[in-house]
C-alpha cells in the first residue's frame, strides 16, 4: 500500500469534497491523485437535479396567490400558514441537500456549491425563492462566476433579502449595491461610498414578481447619469455587474476567499496573485481555477494538509460518508447543525459563516468531541441550541434529549474495508483513513479499545479517533 499516495488522495477528497466514503477506502491507495481529481471533475460535469421540497399544500397555496396576483389579499392566517409551511420545507431542503453531499458522486460540485452558499449568504424564508437560489448555485457552482453572480443577483431570494425591492428612484436603498460590492465581488476598501450610492441608483427598478421571476420595473428606475469607478454614463444594474467583473480586484477577492476556504486560512499572497490572474484571464472560469488548485504540488504540501478546521456541516457529512448510516429521525441533524453553529440556509449574517477558529469555543468543541458517542448504541447527551426567533416564531426550541438517537450504522460494511489488514496493523490503518497526517497515540487507542471481537475493536477505535481534536482537522 502506498501510504503517501493514500494520504494525498484523502487530502484531496476532504478538500474537493466531503471526505472519503467507505466505498472509496479500497481504491484510494491505488489511483494517482491526478486521476482521482480527473474522475471527480468528470463526476461533477453533469447538471444537477433540481431539489424540490415544497409540499402539495404549499404549491396549491402559492398557485392561488399567483392567480390572484396579490399577496396583500391573503388573510393573516393564510400568510401565517405559508410562512409556517415554508419554514418546514426549508428544513427538508436542508436535509435533502445534506443527503446530496453525502451520497452524490459530484462531490466537487456540492463542495463548491457549499462554498457559494456561504458566499452568497441568504436567509430568505420563502421556500420557492430559496430552492430556486440553491438551484442557481448548484447549476453554476463550477461554471462561470459572471453568470453565477448575475443569476444570484437577479434571484428573488437575494433581491428580497437585500431590500432591492424597495430600491426606487425617489428613495434609493443602498443595501443591495453595498453587499454586492463588499461581499460578492470586491471586498471592503476597494470602492467609495459614492460608488455605492451611484450603483444603488443603477440598480433601481430591479425586482421580482410573485412567481420569483426577475422583473425590471422601469417606472422605478433612475435613468439619470451616474458616475461609478470614475466612469460616467446612464448605467443600469447589468452595467454595474459588468464593471465589477472587469475590475481585477473581483478576481483577486474571490480567489483569495476560495484559497482560504479550500486550502488554508492563511493565504499565500504570491499563489493567490498567480491564481487570480489566471482566473481573470479565463473570463472567470471556476472549474479552471479549481483545477489549477487541485493539481498544484503546493496543494499537497504538509503546510496545507490537516490545517483546516472542518465546519460543522463538513464534520457531519464526513462522518456520514465514511460510516454508512440511517437516522430514525433525520431532524436530529438539524439540532447538531444548530448546536455546532452552522445551520444551512440560516447563515449568522450577510457575511456568511466566518469559519476557521470561529467554529471553536469550549462548548462547541465539546459537542464535536462527543458527537461520535451518539453513534454508540448506549450513549447520548442532552443539549439545547439557542432559540432562533427567525426560525421559531416564538415557539420553544426542541432540545436534544439524552438517550438513544437511533442511528443505524452499517458497521459490517465499514469493517469489511479492513478485512485484509492484520489485527496488529488495524489501529494504524484506521488512523490513516480517518486522520489527516495519520498520527495518533496508538497506546492510548489500545488502552481504550474494546477487544471482545474484531468488529467491536474497529468500532471503538473508530469512535475514539473521531472523538479527538485531530479529527476536527482536514
Amino acid at each position: 500500500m502506498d501510504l503517501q499516495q493514500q494520504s494525498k488522495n484523502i487530502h484531496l477528497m476532504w478538500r474537493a469534497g466531503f471526505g472519503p466514503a467507505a466505498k472509496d477506502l479500497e481504491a484510494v491507495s491505488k489511483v494517482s491523485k491526478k486521476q482521482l481529481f480527473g474522475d471527480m471533475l468528470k463526476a461533477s460535469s453533469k447538471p444537477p437535479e433540481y431539489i424540490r421540497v415544497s409540499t402539495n399544500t404549499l404549491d396549491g397555496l402559492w398557485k392561488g396567490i399567483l392567480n390572484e396576483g396579490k399577496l396583500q389579499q391573503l388573510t393573516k392566517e393564510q400568510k401565517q400558514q405559508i410562512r409556517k409551511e415554508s419554514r418546514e420545507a426549508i428544513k427538508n431542503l436542508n436535509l435533502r441537500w445534506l443527503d446530496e453531499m453525502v451520497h452524490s458522486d459530484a462531490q466537487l460540485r456540492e463542495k463548491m456549491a457549499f462554498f457559494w452558499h456561504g458566499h452568497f449568504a441568504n436567509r430568505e424564508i420563502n421556500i420557492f425563492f430559496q430552492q430556486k437560489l440553491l438551484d442557481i448555485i448548484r447549476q453554476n457552482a463550477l461554471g462561470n462566476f459572471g453568470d453565477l453572480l448575475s443569476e444570484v443577483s437577479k434571484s428573488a431570494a437575494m433581491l428580497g433579502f437585500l431590500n432591492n425591492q424597495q430600491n426606487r428612484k425617489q428613495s434609493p436603498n443602498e443595501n443591495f449595491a453595498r453587499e454586492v460590492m463588499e461581499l460578492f465581488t470586491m471586498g471592503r476598501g476597494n470602492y467609495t461610498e459614492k460608488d455605492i450610492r451611484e450603483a444603488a441608483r443603477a440598480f433601481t427598478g430591479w425586482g421580482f414578481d410573485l412567481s420569483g421571476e426577475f422583473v425590471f420595473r422601469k417606472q422605478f428606475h433612475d435613468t439619470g447619469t451616474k458616475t461609478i469607478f470614475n466612469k460616467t454614463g446612464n448605467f443600469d444594474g447589468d452595467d454595474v455587474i459588468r464593471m465589477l467583473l472587469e475590475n481585477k480586484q473581483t478576481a483577486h477577492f474571490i480567489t483569495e476567499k476560495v484559497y482560504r476556504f479550500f486550502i488554508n486560512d492563511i493565504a499565500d499572497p504570491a499563489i493567490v496573485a498567480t491564481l487570480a490572474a489566471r482566473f481573470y484571464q479565463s473570463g472567470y472560469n471556476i472549474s479552471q481555477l479549481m483545477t489549477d488548485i487541485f493539481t498544484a504540488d503546493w496543494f499537497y504540501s504538509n503546510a496545507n494538509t490537516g490545517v483546516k478546521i472542518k465546519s460543522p456541516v463538513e464534520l457531519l457529512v464526513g462522518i456520514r460518508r465514511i460510516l454508512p448510516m440511517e437516522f430514525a429521525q433525520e431532524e436530529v441533524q438539524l439540532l447538531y447543525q444548530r448546536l455546532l453553529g452552522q445551520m444551512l440556509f440560516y447563515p449568522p449574517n450577510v457575511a456568511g459563516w466566518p469559519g476557521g477558529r470561529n467554529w471553536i469555543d469550549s462548548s462547541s468543541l465539546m459537542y464535536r468531541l462527543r458527537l461520535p458517542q451518539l453513534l454508540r448504541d448506549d450513549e447520548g447527551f442532552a443539549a439545547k441550541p439557542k432559540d432562533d426567533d427567525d426560525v421559531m416564531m416564538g415557539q420553544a426550541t426542541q432540545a436534544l434529549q439524552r438517550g438513544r438517537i437511533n442511528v443505524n450504522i452499517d458497521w459490517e460494511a465499514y469493517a469489511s474495508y479492513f478485512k485484509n489488514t492484520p489485527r496488529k496493523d488495524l489501529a494504524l490503518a484506521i488512523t490513516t483513513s480517518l486522520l489527516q497526517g495519520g498520527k495518533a497515540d496508538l497506546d492510548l487507542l489500545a488502552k481504550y479499545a474494546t477487544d471482545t471481537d474484531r468488529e467491536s475493536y474497529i468500532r471503538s477505535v473508530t469512535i475514539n479517533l473521531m472523538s479527538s481534536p485531530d479529527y476536527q482537522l482536514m
Partner: protein
Amino acid sequence: MLIKRRQFIQTGSLATGTLFLPQFLKAFERPAMVPSGNKVVVVIQLSGGNDGLNTVIPYRDDNYYRMRPKLGIKKEEALKINDEAGLHPALPHLRTLHDAGHLGILNSVGYPNPDRSHFRSMDIWQSGSQSNEVLSTGWIGRYLDAQCAGCDKPTQALEVDDVLSLAMKGESQKGLAFRNPKNLYGSSQEKYFRELSALHNHQGNGQADYLYKTMADTISSADYIFQQSKLHPTSQQYPGSQLGQSLKTIASLIFSEINTKVYYVSLGSFDTHVNQDAQQKRLFKELNDALASFTTDLATNHRMEDVLIFSFSEFGRRVSQNASGGTDHGTANNMFLISGGLKKQGLINPMPDLQKLTDGDLQYNVDFKTVYATVLDKWLGADDEKILGARYEKLNFI
C-alpha cells in the same frame, strides 16, 4: 474548623497558592467574603424582542390606550412606580427593588437605522456594531481580548447556556458556556478525554495546538468552576425554572473566589406576535421570581453593591397592537438596571413620547453602545473605546 481537609487539598491543588490563601483567611471574616470593589456584571438577554411598552407602562398616556385598546395594561393593574409609569403586574419584585433604590430604568434605548430581523438586530446588539457593519466578534469577547491576554484561567466571562453567544466571542479570547459545570466533560469518555489532552503540549501555534489548548482549558476551567461552585453553596431558595437555576449557579460563583467578571444568561422567547398577554406574563413571572431569589441572596451576602444586573432585548415592539392579540417587531426599547450601587434610580430618562413616532415606531434616544461604554469604563474599569472601536458618551447611572 469548618474547612474540610478534602476540600482544603482540592482547593490547594487546583487554585494557585495566592488564590488559596485569601480564601483560607476569608473563611474567618464572614460575611464579607470577597473584598468590596470586586465588580461583577450579569447580563440578562430577553430574546425575541420584548414588548417594552407593556413592561414599563405609561399608564397616564391616552395615546397608549388608544393604540392598544385591548392589549394595554390597565391603569389599575400597573404596579406604579411614580405618577406616570408602572411595571407589568407580573413584576412585583422589580417594584420592591425600585422602592429600595436598586432599580434603574433606561428608556428609548436603540440605535440608528434599526433592523427588524431578530438575527440581525441581535447580531448588532451582541457585537456592538453599527447597523451597516458586520463584526464576527462580540463586545464581551473583545473585553476579554483587552483584559485577559495573560490570564491564567479563561473564566472571566461565563454564559450559563449550552451554546456560547456571539457576544462572548473575541478575536483571541472566548468566554465559556456551560449549563452545569459538572457536565462540561462528564461522560463515559471523560477519562479518555483527560488522557488525550494530557498527552499533548500546546506550545505551537498551529490549528491542532489551538484545538488541544481549547480542550485543556475547557477541562481545567470545568474543574475550576465546579470546585468554586461548591465552595459557598447558597442556602437561598431558588425557583426550579431554568433562569432560577442559572442565577443560583451564578450566585454560588459570585460568592466564591472565581475571577469571573461577566455572567450571561438568556430568557425567551418574547416574540409575541400572537396572544402576547399569556406569554409575556409567563416569562415575566419566571424573571421576577428568579430575580427575587437572586437579589435577596446577593443582599444577604452583602454583594448587592458589587453586582450590576442589566437586561436588554434585540428590539422593542410596535406601539399599536396587531389583530392577533400581539405586537409586531419594533425599534427602541427599555432596559432594566439593577444594583445596590446605582447612582441614578427609577426612571433615568423620560418615558418614550408616543406622539413622536416614526412610522408608528418609538424613536431611540440612547444608543445602546453608550450603555456598554458606561459599564465597561465605570464598572469594569476597561478601555471602552478600544473595545467598542469608537468613543461613546458615558451615562451617569453608575
